[in-house]
């Protein structure tokens, strides 16, 4: 098997081989092993690994009716699995070739609505059958053996000798004595750690510069626009209705914190209206405007139930009463929806009188209270 290169330098020195093997080759000569039947070899190796095969219930007798039956069954299962797999290939490749196109169409009931389900059904069927076949094979045709394997606890010998090596190495390094080195190592470690972490500092941004959390693009004279960009006059809406509006700035209707609800109250609602302190004049006539961003976790509040004057947030069901300054009356939200002060410009369209006077959206640590 091996031929020796005898040129100088290629033998690695005049060494002699030590023990050449992991297994107990000294106890079992090749001749002995060659004389053992395969089953005994299997058991021998198992025993060497701490495994005793206690009991084997052979599978069905070779050639018996039972065996032939199982073989046929399992063969059929694997064949079907292959069939389903080829079915998958046909559907995948054939669509748009000799089968109808797989691409989406507006009407249902076409091949395109069948394509994905067919892929799933065929691949699923194929794989499940492969699995089933393997399990059946193990249960019906393989011999059932019961084996016991020993569990070993940690060895005292291993612990003591490993400990000696570790402690010995540490001791020989003299680190315990050479205080200067340990200290400078600790210093170096701290510096290195910080140095490697610091580039992450690029992620840090000051959330208080310019108060981005407390401001929106609403400002004095900014018109209220519908999603389609049209401005709104008082009287455009029927009493009791709600419209979502955005500031008339570029991209205003995509901003995360600017969405506002313009609500025209019904006369009864106006009568029982009880605005927040200092915000009595924020409305305009029977109109009020509140931030659409829930003060709980920032979902857009959306469902307006005008009989009860409540606005419901679909995320965690906070409810706000529009006649009471959009105060939360149920659910986990703690703060009223901020109110946008309204006015009408020279052309008779709704504008904001200023930005919201408090931060819209969820509460945070240093959010100013008003």
């Amino acid at each position: 098997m091996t031929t020796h290169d005898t040129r100088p330098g290629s033998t690695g020195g005049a060494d002699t081989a030590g023990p050449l093997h992991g297994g107990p080759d000294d106890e079992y000569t090749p001749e002995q092993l060659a004389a053992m039947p395969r089953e005994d070899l299997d058991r021998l190796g198992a025993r060497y690994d701490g495994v005793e095969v206690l009991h084997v219930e052979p599978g069905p007798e070779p050639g018996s009716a039972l065996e032939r039956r199982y073989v046929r069954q399992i063969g059929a299962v694997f064949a079907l699995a292959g069939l389903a797999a080829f079915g998958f290939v046909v559907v995948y490749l054939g669509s748009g070739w000799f089968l109808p196109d797989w691409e989406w169409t507006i009407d249902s009931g076409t091949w395109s609505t069948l394509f994905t389900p067919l892929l799933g059904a065929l691949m699923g069927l194929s794989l499940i059958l492969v699995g089933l076949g393997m399990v059946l094979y193990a249960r019906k045709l393989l011999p059932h053996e019961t084996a016991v394997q020993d569990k070993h606890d940690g060895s005292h010998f291993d612990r003591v000798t490993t400990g000696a090596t570790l402690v010995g190495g540490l001791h020989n390094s003299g680190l315990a004595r050479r205080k200067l080195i340990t200290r400078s190592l600790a210093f170096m470690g701290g510096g290195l750690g910080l140095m490697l972490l610091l580039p992450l500092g690029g992620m840090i941004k000051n959330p208080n510069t310019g108060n981005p959390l407390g401001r929106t693009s609403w400002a004095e004279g900014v018109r209220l626009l519908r999603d389609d960009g049209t401005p709104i006059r008082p009287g455009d809406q029927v009493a009791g209705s709600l419209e979502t509006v955005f500031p008339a700035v570029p991209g205003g209707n995509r901003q995360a914190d600017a969405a506002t609800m313009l609500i025209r109250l019904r006369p009864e609602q106006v009568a029982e209206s009880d605005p927040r302190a200092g915000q009595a004049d924020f409305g305009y006539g029977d109109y009020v405007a509140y931030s659409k961003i829930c003060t709980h976790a920032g979902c857009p509040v959306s469902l307006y139930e005008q009989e009860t004057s409540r606005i419901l947030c679909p995320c965690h069901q906070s409810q706000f009463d529009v006649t009471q300054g959009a105060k939360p009356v149920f659910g986990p939200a703690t703060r009223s929806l901020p109110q946008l002060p309204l006015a009408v410009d020279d052309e008779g369209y709704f504008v904001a009188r200023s930005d919201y006077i408090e931060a819209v959206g969820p509460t945070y640590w240093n959010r100013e209270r008003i």
Partner: protein
Amino acid sequence: MARTATAPGAPTTRLGKAAHEIDDRLIVAGPLRRTLNKVFPDHWSFLLGEIAMYAFIVLLLSGTYLTFFFDPSMREVTYEGSYAPLRGVEMSAAYDSALDLSFDVRGGLFMRQVHHWAALLFVAAIIVHLLRIFFTGAFRRPRETNWLIGVTLMVLALLEGATGYTLPDDLLSGTGLRIISAIILAIPVLGTWAHFAVFGGDFPGELIIGRFYIVHVLLIPAILLALIAVHLLILVKQKHTQFPGPGRTEHNVVGNRLFPTFAAKAGGLFFIVFGVIAALGGLVQINPIWLWGPYNPAQVSAASQPDWYIMFLDGSTRLFPAWDINLPGNYTIPALFWPTLVLPGILFTLLALYPMIERKLTGDTASHHLLQRPRDVPVRTSLGAMALTFYLLLIISGGNDVLADKFSISLNAMTWVGRLGLIVLPPLAYAFTYRVCLGLQKHDREVLEHGIETGVIRRLPHGEFIEVHQPLGPVDEHGHGQLAYGGAPVPKRMNQIGGARRAIRGFFTPIEEPAQVELEQQREERGVASAEARELTGSGRPSEGGKPQEPRD
């Protein structure tokens, strides 16, 4: 070591020679044999961890496929693909590419759905696996490390799911992201700083999808993979636990060797798990993002729900009362902080520390390799039932609007039911489970003492009717069984101790001769059954004559 071709044991076949060549270089024969010979206990509940692992493999495969097409960018584009209802709509490139995957990549929708179903199954399998570890006491010394790794895996799986859910940037995931943003903002003192670090500014910014993407496809999967590897290495080192039974001791494992029986069964299970996920992925629509539309901060779809494994947080958020804590100096601890960060923090910490807590309380510091039946550890089982009740209530509350709608209950009533339920029901679950455990224990003891009810009623000479009981082992002079309970299932029906012939094999038609089976049974079971019944409840040490055999529950 030069050998001639005629040396005894030298390989003669091609394959044998090749194997020889390989082992000459890699020296793997020894470790390979040890692996092939490794014994695995044969009980269905040991497959749960495997199911989780197989679902993870499917996730890796399908997820990699998705990355070939997905564009994790928040750049605004106009949709031009084949899904007509959205054509011309402005959206992020992420949503656009997810739509392309669904409509313009052949088989892409199938893959998307496979990936989503695999994720749902993955988390479910982890949790059920955890329950089996918990209720059978498999976490006890020496397996605390694997318990900790397991809890970490579960938390990472949740994070992985949450980041993945966000990626398509549809209306649902955007709403979820908005809530994530609010949760980060709710951290006292550091919240706004953390938010600006994660999002690169105010919500939503332009970076978050790209950042979540790399977390979802690289960071968390790499950590998961590494931890799963360690989890399994430790498992191999420590070997499996097993349920008590004949011949099973603290110092052995009884079961099948890896090769071929266990490998065939486990491989089969892999294909079945994969197949079930594939079938679900094709047949059952999941997360049809084209119906939600692109994310728009001013829109929300009613009854928007996160994936099931996040529902418990949704529930706790709905139920927690509106308690902002206003501190002097205009500082606030938002109410949102408690149900979304503190509560899961406490839950996962308690879960992670449970093995240590139990060890402290019971003073049991011994190593255990034999599992416990839940009924035999009523306190732990009841604690588990209590925790499960709490968890399930949170999940249900996560869908309380849907329930309120379906059953026409007022939403406010549902919220209050949830709030009170969280306080009242877990203790009730504890008490109930405790009773059930004791009852089951008692019944086991009764059967051991008096035998199995045979259903045969006999009239005594003086007219009294008694039911005949079949003792499970030797009896004393009063006819009472002398067997001690050994932690293994006690047979309770005559069939389990060979009282009836086994069923004839065959699904539609019998494939065996009844007479032949009868003969075979008489041959085999007469001796075995009685021996088995005698030993089933002993300690099972071979020294006491226990005969190890395959588990039969």
